[in-house]
C-alpha cells in the first residue's frame, strides 16, 4: 500500500488530471499541462536488463537483453521514434507506469527485429509456421500495482512467448501464460490510441480489469489458435472505437464480467465504428469467433460496426448470459462472401454458437428481407438473399475475396486499404447518438488524446478523414 501511495505521489500531475479531469468525454478541457522533465535519459549503449525507469529517447534504438521491470512508483517514458528490439524472449514487466508516446510521423516500435525481417503479410500463411504466432518475446505485463499503461502511435509485435516462472512471479502470473499485453488493475488506466498490435499466441491483449480506451488502433494476426484480441474480464470499463481487426483468431472485442474483483464495477464497454475482416477462424472451439462478443454478466453498447467475412456476427451470449437488459446494439453492418458467413450473422443454435443476438431494425442488411417472420434469436435461417450483397466497397480489398484465398486466409492488412469508397452503402448509415463512457481522462500524455465520437459512416474509416488513421 505504501508503495502504491508513493507511486501515486510520483505521478501527482497525472493524478491531478485524473481527479480534476474530464469524467465526461464531451467536456472540452483547457487545463494547463504540467511540465514533465525528461527524467533520466536511458542509454542505448548496452542491452537493457533489470529495473529501468526514465526516458527512452526519440530516434534511438534500444535492445532489451533480458527481462526489464519498471518498479512500483517508477515510470518509463518512450519518446517518438524510439525503436525497442526485445531479445532472448524477455519481457517488459510494469509494476509502475509505462507511457509510450509515438506520433504519426514518428511511431514507436516494440518488436523483435529478427522476426520483423521474416514478416510475410501475403494471404493464406500457414499459422503453424508464421512467425507472427511464434511468441518472439513475452510482452508487456502489467502488475496489479500498475496505475497507467499508455500506448500512442506504438507498434507492439510478436509477443506471447510463454512466461517463465520468474517472469510470472513479477506480475502474479503462472508460468506459461502467453499474452502480448496484460493489464490487471481495476483502478488503473490503459490507453491504446492510434497503435498497432501484430501477432500473438493466446489473448493478445488481456484486460483482467481496468479503465480502458482502445481507439483508432489496428490489430492483425492476433492469436495463434484461439484467443480473443481485446479480452476484457470482470471490472473493465471503457470504450473501443475506430479499431481495425484483420484475421483475429477468435473475437476482436470481448466483454465479460468473469473474475470481477470484489467492489469493482461491472464490465461495461461501448464499442462503435470498428471494422472486422475475416475474424474467428483460428478458434479451435466450436461456436466461437465473432467480431464483438458480450457475455457473462457484462454489459455494453455496440453501434456502427462493420463486419466482413467473419465466422459469426455480433454474439450476445446466453450462457453464461450477458447482462442483456442493459446491453444495446444496432446499426451494425454485415457482409459475407459465403453462405457459412451469411447464415451466421445472427449466430444460430445449430452452429452451437450460444448466441442470443436479437436482430435490430437498424441492422444492415435489413433483416426483414431474409429472416422469416416471428424469427427468434438462435433459429436457423437461410442467408442466401444477402449472400455477397451490400459490398461495403473498400478502397483496396477485393470482395468477394478471390477464389484462391479462403476466408480464413485473410490474416493481415498488408497492402489492403479498408477505407470506404465514395458510394459505399456504409456511408451515412451510422448512429451518432451514442455517448462514450469516457473512463479515462482526455490528455495527450496521461489519457486519450482524442476521443473521436461515433461517426456517421459505418466502420473505422470515415469519409471525412476522421477515425482510424492507419491507411496509405
Amino acid at each position, binding site marked *: 500500500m505504501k508503495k502504491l501511495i508513493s507511486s501515486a505521489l510520483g505521478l501527482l500531475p497525472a493524478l491531478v488530471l485524473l481527479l480534476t479531469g474530464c469524467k465526461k468525454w464531451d467536456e472540452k478541457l483547457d487545463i494547463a499541462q504540467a511540465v514533465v522533465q525528461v527524467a533520466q535519459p536511458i542509454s542505448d549503449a548496452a542491452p537493457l536488463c533489470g529495473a529501468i525507469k526514465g526516458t527512452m529517447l526519440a530516434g534511438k534504438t534500444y535492445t532489451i537483453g533480458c527481462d526489464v521491470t519498471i518498479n512500483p512508483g517508477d515510470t518509463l517514458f518512450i519518446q517518438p521514434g524510439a525503436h525497442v528490439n526485445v531479445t532472448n*524472449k524477455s519481457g517488459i514487466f510494469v509494476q509502475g507506469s509505462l507511457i509510450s508516446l509515438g506520433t504519426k510521423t514518428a511511431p514507436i516500435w516494440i518488436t523483435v527485429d529478427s522476426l520483423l525481417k521474416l514478416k510475410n503479410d501475403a494471404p*493464406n500463411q*500457414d*499459422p*503453424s509456421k508464421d512467425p507472427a504466432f*511464434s*511468441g518472439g518475446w513475452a510482452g508487456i505485463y502489467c*502488475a*496489479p500495482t500498475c496505475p497507467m499503461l499508455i500506448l500512442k502511435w506504438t507498434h507492439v509485435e510478436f509477443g*506471447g*512467448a*510463454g*512466461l517463465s*516462472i*520468474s517472469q*510470472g*512471479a513479477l506480475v*502474479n502470473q*503462472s*508460468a*506459461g501464460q*502467453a499474452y502480448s499485453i496484460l493489464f*490487471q*488493475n*481495476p483502478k488503473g488506466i490503459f490507453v491504446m490510441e492510434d497503435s498497432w498490435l501484430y501477432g500473438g*499466441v493466446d489473448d493478445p491483449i488481456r484486460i*483482467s*480489469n481496468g479503465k480502458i480506451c482502445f481507439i483508432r488502433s489496428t490489430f492483425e494476426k492476433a492469436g495463434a*489458435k*484461439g484467443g480473443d484480441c481485446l479480452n476484457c474480464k*470482470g*471490472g473493465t470499463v471503457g470504450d473501443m472505437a475506430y479499431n481495425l481487426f484483420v484475421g483475429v483468431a477468435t473475437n476482436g472485442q470481448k466483454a465479460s*464480467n*468473469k*473474475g*470481477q*474483483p*470484489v*467492489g*469493482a*464495477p461491472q464490465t461495461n464497454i461501448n464499442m462503435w465504428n470498428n471494422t472486422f475482416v475475416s475474424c474467428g477462424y483460428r478458434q*479451435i472451439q*466450436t*461456436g466461437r469467433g465473432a467480431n464483438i462478443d458480450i457475455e457473462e*454478466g457484462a*454489459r455494453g453498447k455496440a453501434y456502427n460496426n462493420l463486419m466482413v467475412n467473419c465466422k459469426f456476427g455480433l454474439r450476445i451470449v*446466453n*450462457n*453464461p*448470459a450477458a*447482462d442483456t437488459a442493459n446491453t444495446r446494439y444496432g446499426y451494425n453492418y454485415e457482409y459475407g462472401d459465403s453462405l457459412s458467413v451469411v447464415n451466421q450473422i445472427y449466430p444460430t*443454435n*445449430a*452452429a*452451437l*454458437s*450460444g448466441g442470443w443476438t436479437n436482430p435490430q431494425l437498424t441492422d444492415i442488411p435489413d433483416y426483414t428481407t431474409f429472416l422469416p417472420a416471428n424469427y427468434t434469436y438462435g433459429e436457423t435461417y437461410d442467408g442466401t438473399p444477402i449472400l455477397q450483397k451490400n459490398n461495403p466497397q473498400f478502397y483496396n480489398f477485393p470482395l468477394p475475396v478471390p477464389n484462391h484465398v*479462403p476466408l*480464413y*486466409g485473410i490474416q493481415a492488412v498488408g497492402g489492403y486499404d479498408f477505407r470506404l469508397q465514395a458510394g459505399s452503402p456504409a456511408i451515412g448509415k451510422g448512429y451518432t447518438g451514442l455517448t462514450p463512457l469516457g473512463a479515462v481522462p482526455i490528455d495527450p500524455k496521461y489519457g486519450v488524446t482524442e476521443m473521436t465520437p461515433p461517426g456517421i459512416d459505418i466502420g473505422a474509416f470515415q469519409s471525412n478523414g476522421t477515425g482510424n488513421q492507419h491507411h496509405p
Partner: protein
Amino acid sequence: MSFNSTKCLLLFLCLLNFYTSFAGGVKGKVLDRQTGEPLAGATVQISSGSFQRTTSVNLDGTYTFKNIPEGSYRLTVKYVGYSATEEFTVSVADGDKFSTRNVDLKEEGKELEQVQITSTGKEGDHNARGLEKNSAVLQNILSQKAIELLPDVTVANALQRVPGVVIQRSSSGEGRYAIIRGMDERYNNTLVNGVKIPSPDAKYRYVPMDLFPSDMLERLEVIKSLTPAMEADAVGGTMNLVMKTAPQHFVFNINAATGISTLFTSSRPFSAFSHSAVNDKSPAEINGNSYTATQKDFSTGNLNFTGKSQPWNTMAGTTIGGRLLHDKLGIIFSGSYQNFYRGSNSDFLVPNAQPQVVGNQDNQSVISDLYVRRYSTQTTRVGLHNNIDYVFNNKNKISLYNMYIHMNEFQTRSTYDSVYLNKLSDNLMRSRLQKQSIYSSTLIGDHTLSNQFKVNWKGTYAIAKSAVPDMAEYDYQSGSTPGTYIVQDLSRIWQHNTDKDIAGYLDLLYTPSIAGQKVEFSLGGMYRNKSRDNYYNDYSLSPVLTGGQPQQWKDYNDATYSFSPAGNGAGSITTANPNTYSSHENVAAGYGQFKFALTPKLEVLGGLRIEHTRQHFTTVMPESFAGRYGSVEYTDPLPSLHFKYALNDKQNIRLSYFRSIVRPDFYEIIPTENVGEIFNIKGNDSLRHSKADNIDLRYELYPGGSDQLLLGVFYKNIKDPIEYAIVRNGGPSAQFLMPENFGNAHNYGLEAVYTKFFGPFGISANYTYTKSRITTTKQFAYKDPTLGITSKIVDQSRPLQGQADHIGNLSLLYKNPRIGLDLQLAFVYTGKRIIQVSPYYNLDYWQLGQGVLDFSFEKRFLKHFYFYGKLNNLTNAPAKTVIYQAPPAGSAFPDQSYSDKTVVGKEIYGLNLLGGFRYKF
C-alpha cells in the same frame, strides 16, 4: 512348536448358574472368568457312556441341552484360546423341569507368570468391550471378529460402523476419509500400533483410510479423548489401527473371495487402458528441464480404452503365526490382496464460476454445464505386515513391527460435458493411475526395571509415497455440422510425493505406593523428523491447425497436437509449479502424566504435554518471489484431565478435558498459487495452527457380554480453525481462495450407543447428534446503482464442512455358533451436510441425507472351513448434492424434485457382491 493349549491361556472359565433337569436337561452360561464376558461360540459337551451331545454357546453366553434322558453326565467346555475346563458332573432328573445347580469354577495356575502376554481371545467383541470399559480414555473399538463379519473389506468402510464417524467417499463410492464427530479429515489423525504414520496424500497430512485392507487388523480403535502421552494433533479423534500380534497358539487362516459390481454391464462396461503404457517419468524427468517436449514424447496406449463388460473382483488373505523357542519368540505374518473393479455414474449440473444477478435476484448461481461422468476404477491393494516379538524374560521384551501397504488405482473417467442451454458438447476421456504406498517399521522395547519402574521405547522409520504418473486427458468437441467433432486440448500431468518420518519415543513409568495407593507417574517424550517432497509437472497441448483450420476429430491416435507457443513444452516451464516444494517438520514433545484412584471408585488421569513444532519449506519460485522459502515455529502446552467414576462393576461415568491442536497442511503455509477450479488457491504464510479445548461427559453401562449402553455429550471450542475463503491480496485484482484462521468454531453433540443380544439375535445401534458453527467471509453478488453488477464480502455462519447433524448405524445380527452361522444386516444413515464450502454466500454444496444398507454372512460348513459373503449398497440409492437455491423455472433440468433447492449432483455406484471361503486353523 509348542502350542499346548493348556499353557497358552491365562483366562479362567467360569460356569455360572448351572441348571440341570429332566428331559429338557441342562442349560447355563459360559463366561470369561477375568472379564465376565460371555464366550460365544465355545463348545459345550455332555456325555455319558456312548451318549454324547455338543452345543455352542450363544452370543449372550447361554447354552441349552434339551430332551436329555434322565441320568448323570460329564460336562466339558472348550474354547479356542482358553484352557479346557475340568469335567463337571451334572444330573438330569425325571420330570419336566430344570433343577438348579451352581458351580463356581476357580481354575488357577495356568497363566505363564513370567511372560507378560496380554489376553488371548483378543479378536472377539467381548474383549473390545472390556478394553473400552477399562480404558482411561473415551474410545470405541471394533474387534477383529467384528471387522471380519462386517460387510466391509477396507478400514475406511469399517470406520463408518463406529459411533460418530461419517466417511467421505471417493468417486467410486468407496469410503476414503473419516469425519469424526463432525470434524473433517483435517481434525483427525491416524496411528498404526500407536505410532503416527505419514500420509501419501499429495496435499494433506491425513491418511486415506481405504489404503488398509481391514483383515490386517486385530482391532480398530477410535479414541475420542487424548491423554498427555498421546500425539496431540487430533480434535475429532485418533484412529489407531492395531495390527495383529503373534497369537499364543498356532494360527493359520486363509481366505479367498470373488465377486462383481452390478454397475458394469455390456451396455455400461468397465473402461480399461493399457497399464504398461503409463510412463513413470515425464519428458522433463527423462531429458532434463531444458528439453522442450513435443507430442511424440507422450505415449498413446493410456488414451486408448477398451471395455470389459463384467470384470471379476478378487480378494485373498492369509495370516500365519504362533510362538517358537519355548514361547519366547512370537511371529505373525499377514498378507492381503484385493483387486476390485468399481465405479460410479454421475450427473453434475455445474454452476458457473461466479454467481450472477438474475433479474432482481442477487447472488444467483447459474448452471453453465452438465457433466455426465462415468468412472471405472480398478483398485489393487496389497497389504503385508509382520510382527516379531522376543521375550527375554518376564522383565524384558522387544518387538519389531513391519508394515507395507500398496494401492494402485487405475481409473478411467469419461465426461460428456454439454454447455447448458446449448447443444455444444465436449467429450473428455481421462486415464489416471495413482500408486500409493506406506512402509513403516517400528522397533519396540518394554523393560521392567523394578516393581516400580518400567521403560518403553520405540523407534520408527516410515515412508509414504504417492505417484500419479501421466494423468492424461483428451477432449473433442461437437462441430457445427452434426456428427462431426473438433479436436480440443490434451493435458498430461506427472505428480509424485514422498513423506518420510523418523521418530523416537520414550516412556518412563514409575508406580510408587503413596498412602497405600498405587500412583502411576509417567514421563516421556517423542521426537519426529518429517521430510516431504512434492513434484508436479504439467503439460498442456492444443491441436495443430490443419490448413489454417480447426482439426477434425477421428480418434486420439489420429490427432496432432503442439504446444502454443512451442516453448511452453520446455521442462523449465512445465515443472515451474507451486505444487513442487519440499518441506521439513520437526516435532519434539514431552509429557508428564499421573494416574491414581482418588477414591476406590474414582480414577483420575491427567498431566501436561508440550509439543514444539518447526516447519520449513522450500519452493521452486524465483528470488523475486516473496515467500519462496520460510519456516514457522510454535510451542503448545497441552493439559488434559480425565475422571472415571465407577458407579459399580458395570457402570462408569467419565468426564474428560483435553487440549489439542491441528497443524496446517504443508502446502497451506506456502504462499504460492495453485490453479483451482473457480479461484486459484494461494497458501498463507501467516496461517496459525488451530487449538481446541475438548470436554466430554459419558455414561457407560456394560451389562455383560457384548452388550453396552453408552450415552455421552461433548463440546469443542476450536480457536483459529482453518477454512478457505476469498481474499484479496497482493493487488486490487488478485483474488484467491486462501486458507485463513477464522476466530472460533464451536462443535457440540450427543452420542448414544446401544448393543444388546437376545440369544442368537443381536441389535447394535448408535446415534450421534452434532451441531457446529463457524463464521467465515463469503462473496456476494448484487446490483449497485453506480457500479452495476458487483460484489461485496459478507460474513456467513454455517456448520463445519462434513458435519451432519444426525448420523446413525443400525445393525441386526444373528449368530448361531452351533451351526456356525453369522448374519449381519447393517444400515448407516448420514444426515445432510456440507460437502463443499462455496466461496459465495449461501451457495455451499450440501449432500442430502443418505442411507446405505449392507449385508454380510458367514457359514461354517466343515470343521475349519467357512463360506462368507458381503453384499454392499443393497438399495443402490443415489447420493444427491444440492445447493439451496430454487431450481431455475421452465428449464429442462433433470432430477429436480424440490422447490427450495437445486439438485446439482447425483451419483450411483451399483451393488457390490462378494463371496468366498475362509479356512481357519
